[in-house]
């Protein structure tokens, strides 16, 4: 059974580019436009890994990680941040919140897929 990956980004182009790369690698994907929708889709279940932007309206990526980790069902859910942010202190903050990875845009599809493959197979 192929893993189901949730792509959370306020840019529809990024969501489509990430989804296409993952689908070509054999994953199923869902999309969310911001952290609010992202949390809702995670709590609806059947998500094996999340690729999530940081700077988004309504609820940012780090807030999404913090909220999801409060739910015991999702303490081990792999969450990879995909963002323009590269400051080490912000990366450390995301790690402390419970994120499992950090990719700085612009992303290389092969590296993104490799990171998802490594983390998604360990969940669910």
């Amino acid at each position, binding site marked *: 059974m192929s893993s189901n990956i949730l792509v959370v980004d306020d*840019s529809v182009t990024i969501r489509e580019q990430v989804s296409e790369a993952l689908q070509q690698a054999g994953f199923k994907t869902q999309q969310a436009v911001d952290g609010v929708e992202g949390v809702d889709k995670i709590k609806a279940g059947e998500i094996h890994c999340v690729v999530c932007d940081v700077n988004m309206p309504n609820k940012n990526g780090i807030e999404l990680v913090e909220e999801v980790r409060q739910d015991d069902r999702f303490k081990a859910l792999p969450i990879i941040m995909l963002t323009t942010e590269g400051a080490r202190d912000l990366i450390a903050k995301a790690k402390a919140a419970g994120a499992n990875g950090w990719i700085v845009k612009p992303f290389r599809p092969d590296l993104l897929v490799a990171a998802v493959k490594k983390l998604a197979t360990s969940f669910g």
Partner: protein
Amino acid sequence: MKQSPKDVIVASFRQSVDDVFSFHGGDETDYDPTVAEFAVSYLFDNCEPEEMVSAKISLQGDSVNCSAYLVAMSETIEEVAQAVVVCSLDWIGELSNLLLGSFKNKLWEYNIESQLGLPSTRPGIHIESTVGSGARDAVVVRTIAGDILVVLNFYYPKDAFWEHNPDQSSAEDGSVSLF
């Protein structure tokens, strides 16, 4: 080595333009300020607004305040992505996000902290034409699909000096870290 904030901002901005557009289809960039300022005037006088798309994104901090504007023809933006583009308005917004995100990371290496805003996009030509007490740098990015005008309006502390902190390196564009 201590540098003037203006020099750091301009150098970081231009490097960010190079970084983003070398990845996303730019063949060369023209930093001639005469060309860039001419391009601003040319756009307002000669281009059909309905063919154009614009993005604005801002960066704010205690020591720096700036806004970047990207303007190009809609079809240029769609073609430079070299990947699926659902909407040129969305993609020019994401390009502005990539640009100022990269710029923000470079400023962080000078201990300059700032907050990146969310991009706003509109059809047509939208650039703040005056900078008041601030400064401006402008670049024309030449791609095989057409030109992209990138303008940075910025405000900085006039009496300060900034110094690069070799211990404060940001994660590289495209890097992957698994914890």
